[in-house]
C-alpha cells in the first residue's frame, strides 16, 4: 500500500448491522488522492442516476487522505460525500474536529455507511480490534450536538448529528467537536439513515515514506506560518471575521438579502470588534493547527462556546441587517447545537424576511430586528410551523411562495458571503462549482477582492481563468485532506508588505491581471514540489507532487463531479447566478449586475468542455476519467 494510507475501507450496512473491511484501491488513490476525490469516485461508481438522496440507496461516505493522521498543520479534516438532498447533485462537505485523526488511528481511510437502520442507532468502531458495535441510540435522539458528544465521552473521536439532521433539515450538517461539515445537507442524509453518531478509536500510527524529512520540514512550515501576515497574524488575531470590514469596504458584504453590499454597522460585527469586546483572549483551534482562527465567546445561559466565523457574521448579521454580536453568537450556537449550516440557514432567514417585507409570507421576522429569530431557528431545526418551509432552503421556498429572482442560491445551495457583483471571478466560481453556490471550492475572491494582491474584480480579465485554477487546487486540497485556509499562505509576506497604493504594487497587480492563459500554463507546470502541501504529500507518499500534478488531479476530481451532476440531469442552464446578481447593481457606475454570460463560454473552453458545458471525450481521456 502507498505510504500515508491505512489501506482499508470499512463498509457498514445499517439495515442488517453488518460490516466488512475491504482494501483501498491504490489505482484510485493515485488518481484521486483521497478525501473528496476518492469519495466522489466511489459515489459515482456505486450508485445509479436518480437515487433518492434521503433514501437507503444513498451511501454516506466519510473519507480521509494521506495527510490526515500526521502532525502537519491544518491536516485535521475529513470529507463527507453523498448525493445532496438540498441540490439533487453532488453533495460534499469537509470538517475539522478530531474525527479524521480518529479514523486514521483506527486504520481506516474511508468509511462507507449504506442503507438505513430501522430505529435510531449509533456505531462504535475499534480499529485495533477490527470491531464495529451497533448500539441503540434512542436516548441520544433529540439531543443537540454538544450534549450528544458529552454523553459519548472523550475516549473516542465522534461525528454526530443534532435534531436538524434527525429531522432531515436539507442543510443539516455533521459535527465533530465544535466543527461542522456544514454544506449540502450531509447531516440530513445521516439523519435519514437514523444514524445519530459514529465513534472511532484506535492506536495505529501513520506510515510515511520519509518521516525525518517530513518532521524537519514541518518545523520549518510552522515558522513560516507564524511569520505570515495572514496565517500568523490577521487570522490568528481576528479570526475569519477580519473579512467583515474588508468586504464591507469593497461593497461585497451581503446586506439585506444581497440588496446591498455594505452595512452601516459592519464594524460592530467584525473580527476586530469581537477581539476587543467579546473574546477576552480566548482563541480556539482544530488539532495540530497553529493558526487558531476559531474564537470562543460567552453565550448567555450556555457559557463559553465556539463563536461565529465570517460566513455566520455576514449571513446572520449584515444580511439580516443585524449588528448585534451577542445575538449572532447565540444564533451561531443554536445552529451548531441543532447541527445546521449557518450559510444556508442565514440565507433562508433573509429570504423569509424579504418575503415578509413584500407581504408574501407572514414569517414573523423582519430585517434589522432580532425579535423572533431564535425561536424560528429552533423551529427550523425541529421542522415546526413555518420552520418546516425554511428547513427546505431558499430554492424550495421560492418554488412555493415565489420570489425566485431574489432566492440567493446556485443549483439549490445558498450563496456564501461574497457578493459576486464586486467579485466577478467569484461569480463564475459560484455558477460553475459542482456543489452549488459556495466559496470554499475555489475562493477566487481572495485573488481579486479581499486578498493582498487584488486585480480589478470588475473587468473580464482573468475572470474565467482564476476559477479554473482555484477550483482545481481546492479539489486537490479537499482530497489530502487539508484545511482550505492553507492556500491563504501562498501569497508571500513581501507582497503583503507592499504599499497597496504604490506604483510598484499597481504594476504588479496589472501584470497579474494581464497574464491571461499564461496563468493556467504556469500553474500546470510539473516541476519539483515547492509549496508545503506538495512537499508534505511527497514526503509522506513517496511520489512527487508539484503544483502541476495537483492541478491535474484537481481537474480530474472537478470533472468527475461535473459528470455526476450531468448524469443527474443538470445542464448548462444550472450554471447561473440568482437574477438579483445578474440584473441588479450595487455599484454606482454599474448598469447591471454580474456579466456571467460573457465569461461562461470562456470558462467552458478553459475547462475543455463543449458549448453545452459537457466535458469533451478528449478532456475525459486526458484526465483519465473512466465513465
Amino acid at each position, binding site marked *: 500500500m502507498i505510504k500515508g494510507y491505512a489501506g482499508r475501507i470499512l463498509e457498514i450496512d445499517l439495515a442488517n448491522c453488518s460490516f466488512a473491511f475491504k482494501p483501498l484501491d491504490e489505482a484510485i488513490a493515485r488518481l484521486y488522492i483521497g478525501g473528496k476525490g476518492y469519495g466522489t469516485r466511489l459515489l459515482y461508481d456505486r450508485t445509479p442516476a436518480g437515487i433518492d438522496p434521503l433514501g437507503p440507496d444513498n451511501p454516506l461516505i466519510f473519507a480521509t487522505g494521506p495527510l490526515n493522521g500526521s502532525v502537519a498543520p491544518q491536516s485535521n479534516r475529513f470529507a463527507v460525500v453523498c448525493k445532496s438532498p438540498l441540490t439533487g447533485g453532488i453533495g460534499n462537505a469537509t470538517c475539522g474536529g478530531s474525527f479524521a485523526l480518529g479514523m486514521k488511528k483506527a486504520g481506516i481511510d474511508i468509511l462507507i455507511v449504506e442503507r438505513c437502520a430501522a430505529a435510531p442507532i449509533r456505531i462504535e468502531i475499534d480499529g485495533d480490534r477490527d470491531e464495529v458495535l451497533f448500539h441503540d441510540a434512542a436516548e441520544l435522539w433529540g439531543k443537540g450536538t454538544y450534549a450528544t458528544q458529552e454523553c459519548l465521552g472523550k475516549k473516542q473521536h465522534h461525528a454526530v448529528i443534532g435534531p436538524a439532521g434527525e429531522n432531515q433539515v436539507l442543510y443539516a450538517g455533521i459535527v465533530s467537536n465544535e466543527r461542522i461539515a456544514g454544506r449540502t445537507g450531509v447531516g440530513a442524509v445521516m439523519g435519514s439513515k437514523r444514524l445519530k453518531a459514529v465513534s472511532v478509536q484506535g492506536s495505529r500510527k501513520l506510515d510515511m515514506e520519509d518521516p525525518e524529512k517530513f518532521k524537519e520540514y514541518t518545523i520549518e512550515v510552522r515558522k513560516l506560518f507564524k511569520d505570515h*501576515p*495572514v496565517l500568523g497574524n*490577521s*487570522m490568528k488575531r*481576528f*479570526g*475569519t*471575521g*477580519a*473579512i467583515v*470590514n*474588508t468586504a*464591507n*469596504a*469593497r*461593497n*461585497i458584504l451581503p446586506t439585506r438579502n444581497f440588496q446591498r*453590499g*455594505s452595512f452601516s454597522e459592519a*464594524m460592530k460585527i*467584525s*473580527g*476586530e*470588534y469581537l477581539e476587543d469586546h467579546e473574546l477576552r483572549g480566548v482563541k480556539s483551534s482544530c488539532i495540530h493547527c497553529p493558526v487558531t*482562527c476559531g474564537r470562543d465567546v460567552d453565550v448567555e445561559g450556555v457559557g463559553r462556546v465556539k463563536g461565529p*466565523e*465570517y*460566513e455566520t457574521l455576514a449571513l446572520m448579521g449584515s444580511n439580516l441587517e443585524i449588528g448585534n454580536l451577542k445575538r449572532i453568537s447565540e444564533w451561531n450556537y443554536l445552529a451548531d447545537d441543532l447541527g445546521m449550516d449557518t450559510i444556508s440557514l442565514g440565507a433562508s432567514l433573509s429570504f423569509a424576511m424579504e418575503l415578509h417585507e413584500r407581504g408574501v409570507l407572514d414569517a414573523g421576522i423582519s430585517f434589522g430586528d432580532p425579535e423572533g429569530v431564535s425561536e424560528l431557528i429552533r423551529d427550523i431545526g425541529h421542522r415546526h410551523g413555518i420552520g418546516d418551509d425554511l428547513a427546505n432552503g431558499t430554492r424550495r421556498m421560492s418554488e412555493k411562495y415565489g420570489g425566485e429572482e431574489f432566492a440567493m442560491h446556485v443549483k439549490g445551495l445558498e450563496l*456564501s458571503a461574497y457578493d459576486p457583483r*464586486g467579485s466577478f471571478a467569484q461569480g463564475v466560481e459560484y455558477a460553475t462549482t459542482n456543489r452549488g453556490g459556495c*466559496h*470554499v471550492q475555489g*475562493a477566487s475572491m*481572495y485573488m481579486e477582492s*479581499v*486578498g*493582498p494582491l*487584488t486585480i*480589478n474584480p*470588475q473587468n473580464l480579465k482573468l475572470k474565467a481563468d482564476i476559477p479554473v485554477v482555484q477550483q482545481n487546487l481546492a479539489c486537490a486540497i479537499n482530497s489530502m485532506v487539508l484545511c*482550505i*485556509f492553507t492556500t*491563504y499562505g501562498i501569497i508571500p509576506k513581501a507582497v*503583503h508588505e507592499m*504599499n*497597496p*497604493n504604490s506604483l510598484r*504594487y*499597481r504594476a504588479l*497587480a496589472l501584470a497579474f491581471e494581464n497574464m491571461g492563459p499564461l496563468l493556467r500554463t504556469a500553474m500546470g507546470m510539473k516541476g519539483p514540489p515547492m509549496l508545503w502541501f506538495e512537499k508534505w504529500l511527497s514526503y509522506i507518499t513517496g511520489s512527487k507532487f508539484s503544483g502541476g500534478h495537483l492541478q491535474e488531479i484537481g481537474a480530474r476530481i472537478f470533472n468527475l463531479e461535473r459528470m455526476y451532476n450531468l448524469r443527474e440531469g443538470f445542464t448548462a442552464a444550472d450554471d447561473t447566478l440568482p437574477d438579483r446578481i445578474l440584473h441588479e447593481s*450595487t*455599484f*454606482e*457606475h454599474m448598469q447591471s449586475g454580474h456579466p456571467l454570460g460573457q465569461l461562461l463560454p470562456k470558462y467552458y473552453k478553459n475547462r475543455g468542455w463543449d458549448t453545452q458545458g459537457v466535458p469533451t471525450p478528449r478532456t475525459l481521456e486526458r484526465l483519465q476519467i473512466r465513465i
Partner: protein
Amino acid sequence: MSVTLQLTYEMSKALGVPRLELDGPETVADVVRTVESRFGDAGADFAKLTRVTAIAVNGVLVNYRRGMKTRLGEGDVVAFVKAAAGG
C-alpha cells in the same frame, strides 16, 4: 461637497470615531491630507495606516482609477481596505 469615510478598525480606534464625514476634499489625496491635519497625532497615525491599506471609492479601488488623484463626487464613500482572509 461632502464625502463619507469608512475607516478600518485600527483607523477608527486611532481617530476615536467609526466613520467620518468630510466637506471639501476633491481628491482622495485631499482626504488623507485633511484628516492628517485635523486630528494632530491621531491624524499622523491615520496617515501611516493609509500606507498599508488600499483605498476604494464606492467599493472600487482607486488603483483601477487615478490612484490618489481620483476625483470625488458629492456623497461618495471613501473606504480604507485592509487585506484579509478567511471564509
